[in-house]
């Protein structure tokens, strides 16, 4: 956990506030474009937000939060009650959406999905790598950082206001794509689905804010063998691995509890994890909040 204080809040667009957080105990942990942090809110909720400031600024993190009309208490709380001067605990940055080396980039942002792509575009431009951004939103006033992007990156940025222009034709974008281009897309579920239909899987990297709607096989019980502590924790069908470990007194942090934020990452030593997360667990890792086991036993490094 890192200690910060809210230095400034700004209206970034209709229903979007950006928070500038300043570290209060020395420089903040370094991060790379695509990274996110968890904010521990005063109402006990933990919420993940992409860092959208400048990675070179060791004193500050910037996040932007859209007020979700169906808020469960995270974004609504931030909008109504977080004001400059308030102390806020922030996790270390994690990155499930890193910018891999490529000769060219195409960034696709939908609404608040602009946040992880903002520092990516800056990094590509700074490294002199050809990059373009297609930024889709309902209307210009609902698109955070549109002005900032236009003034900093000019012709590299194409703003698409769906209310006037309709949705962009991703298939046309895909057919014009130069070989080797990597596509980074962050936005609402329909946009991710459209990108997955348009671009080859090997070229596309996506990040979601909420889990994709999917149907999983029925839960089965399994045993979590904790190699370091020498304990075996049974995980019943009606309980998550995360809850079972916590109940057994083995603390594993939880965040979103829906396979998006990655705070409950575990190292799997043997056995077959059944991945149900939306992060795309790297080899040998799993997310205890949603993922289960294909084998009767999972050996984890805990």
């Amino acid at each position: 956990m890192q200690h910060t204080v809210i230095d400034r809040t700004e209206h970034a667009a209709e229903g979007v506030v950006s928070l500038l957080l300043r570290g209060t105990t020395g420089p903040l942990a370094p991060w790379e474009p695509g990274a996110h942090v968890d904010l521990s809110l005063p109402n006990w909720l933990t919420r993940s937000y992409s860092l959208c400031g400048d990675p070179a600024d060791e004193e500050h993190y910037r996040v932007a939060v859209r007020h979700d009309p169906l808020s469960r208490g995270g974004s609504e709380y931030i909008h109504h009650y977080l004001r400059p001067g308030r102390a806020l605990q922030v996790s270390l940055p994690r990155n499930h959406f890193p910018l891999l080396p490529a000769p060219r980039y195409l960034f696709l942002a939908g609404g608040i999905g602009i946040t992880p792509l903002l520092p990516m575009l800056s990094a590509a431009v700074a490294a002199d790598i050809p990059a373009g951004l297609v930024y889709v939103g309902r209307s210009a006033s609902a698109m955070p950082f549109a002005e900032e992007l236009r003034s900093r990156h000019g012709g590299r940025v194409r703003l698409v206001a769906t209310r006037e222009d309709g949705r962009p034709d991703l298939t046309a974008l895909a057919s014009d794509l130069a070989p080797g281009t990597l596509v980074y897309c962050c936005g609402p579920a329909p946009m991710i689905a459209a990108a997955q239909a348009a671009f080859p899987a090997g070229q596309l990297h996506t990040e979601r804010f909420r889990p994709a709607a999917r149907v999983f096989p029925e839960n089965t019980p399994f045993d979590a063998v904790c190699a370091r502590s020498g304990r075996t924790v049974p995980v019943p069908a009606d309980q998550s691995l995360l809850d079972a470990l916590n109940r057994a007194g083995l603390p594993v942090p939880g965040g979103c509890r829906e396979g998006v934020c990655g705070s409950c990452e575990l190292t799997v030593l043997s056995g077959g994890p059944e991945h149900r997360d939306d992060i795309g667990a790297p080899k040998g890792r799993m997310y205890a909040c949603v993922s289960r086991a294909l084998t009767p036993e999972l050996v984890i490094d805990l």
Partner: protein
Amino acid sequence: MTHARVRPRRVSPAEVRERLGTPDALVEAKILDRIDEHFRRFIAHSPFLTLATADAAGRADCSPRGDYPGFVKVLDEHTLAMPDRPGNKLADSFRNLAENDGVGMCFLIPGLRETLRVNGSAYATDEPDVLARMHTEGREPELALVIEVAEAYFHCGRALVRSRLWDPASQALADEMPSVGEMTIAQHNLTIDPEVIDAGLEEAYHTLY
């Protein structure tokens, strides 16, 4: 242990009013008919409330409700929504509301002496947009209670001051109580080990959503 039933003297309602005197104009004026920004802030920070309902005959019931702060959602100035989390499945509140839609709520914030009182009428809903706002730990409640607010006001903190409710030292009172398992067994002359009941309860406390 049997005793004759104790029946203290009944004071008539008229006499009660006479003895207490009339309420201050200020006290009556503090009652609003809606959830303004200050009440909203209170609700956003409250993890616990008591919910009172009654059946058609006026037989009353009061039950505790709790979750993370702000678990009661303010849908608009006149409307609240509260998740129905897993409980004892007695559904006393729902059964009462089917006959009599009146509700009284008392919101508490740990550490704060004043409480928020909200009275109104309520009904059960399964509206997806309401339940979506209550999605917790991968689960949504089956039902929520919609509360149409008739009156809302801050209740002064004397009761909490007198009760030392938020004084950490007050928690020593819990040590004076036998476990629920021990009490249940004594109450119903059961022959099982009280540990079985206590362990069962502990187990249930792990299934909160």
